[in-house]
């Protein structure tokens, strides 16, 4: 149980690190939001779940935190991306690609 928890925590840490790199390295704001949200959502999930395996008495509270992150993180990133699009933020694209329309 403790070993599984530790492995999950390491996986979570690696994903958070990759998310950080993504925020630094991606070319425009939309790609950065993607890296910052998707990677950190998964990273935070497995990190918190790993803590829950190591300390089973906290598991219920940690699952509540996971549910909260699962609700807020996608909504927040969607709103940010939409605002950036409406504001006409710079979009990185290759030759011959079109802008897609967003409602």
């Amino acid at each position: 149980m403790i070993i599984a928890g530790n492995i999950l925590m390491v996986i979570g840490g690696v994903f958070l690190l990759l998310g950080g790199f993504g925020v630094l390295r991606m070319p425009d704001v939309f790609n950065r939001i993607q890296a910052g949200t998707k990677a950190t959502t998964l990273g935070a999930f497995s990190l918190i779940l790993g803590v829950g395996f190591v300390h089973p008495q906290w598991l219920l509270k940690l699952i509540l935190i996971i549910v909260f992150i699962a609700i807020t993180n996608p909504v927040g990133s969607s709103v940010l991306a939409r605002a950036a699009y409406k504001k006409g933020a710079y979009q990185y694209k290759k030759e011959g690609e079109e802008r897609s329309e967003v409602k």
Partner: protein
Amino acid sequence: MKQIVSILLVAAIGILIFSALYFSDETLKFNEYGNVNLDDRVSEKYIDKSVNGNTEEIIFGETQNAESGSANMVTSVVVNYRSFDTLGEVTVLFVSALGVGLLLNGKRKRKNLKDAPNFILKQGARIIFGIMVVFGVYMFIHGHITPGGGFPGGAIIAASILLLYLSDDEFRVKLSAAKAVESTAGSLYVIVGLLGIVLAGYFLQNFLPTGTVGEVISSGVIPIVYMLIGLKVGSELSSVIDGFLTEEVEG
């Protein structure tokens, strides 16, 4: 009707204070001018206390009838020892909300948001709103046990109201209800203080039994006062938010 009720209220409070100051028993009686024993006063007591006072260990969940009964040190200072100061802080917030209300008064309607909020934001805000309100209420009910208290709890509730304002073009707080909650909570805080004079001798004195450290129902009037502060701050900030996100109707 309103005038009669307010006159009766003022008269009742006057009788309460007067009887508490001059007709209560000897220990609680207000001293005449010049006859006060300064050694009984707060500063002297707490300076001595740190040196040779009660130094036994306090155990979470076991110790009974501790002095303030609050496991959270900050809360026991803010709402017990220096509660009068907190009453002043609440008044400052009230005056600033009053100023906003005076500047932005009249018949008002919602400002149109630049971009209509989309489906994801609307539904997400609806789900998060409930969680945020519950967390805010938890924050001020547990103010005497865990970090937090009335002010952050009220701010969290107001933030959830702001979220609804930003995610819904039509939503408005019922201002009359917010004002009713605010004024009721504010007056109840003062009434708790006056009950302190009557029952324990000093304004805002903790007159209820303090119970076991670390339980929800413990530490006397602290949870009651923090609940009142939380409701007051939440409704005040909500009406301020409403003032900023609406515009006057012309004509």
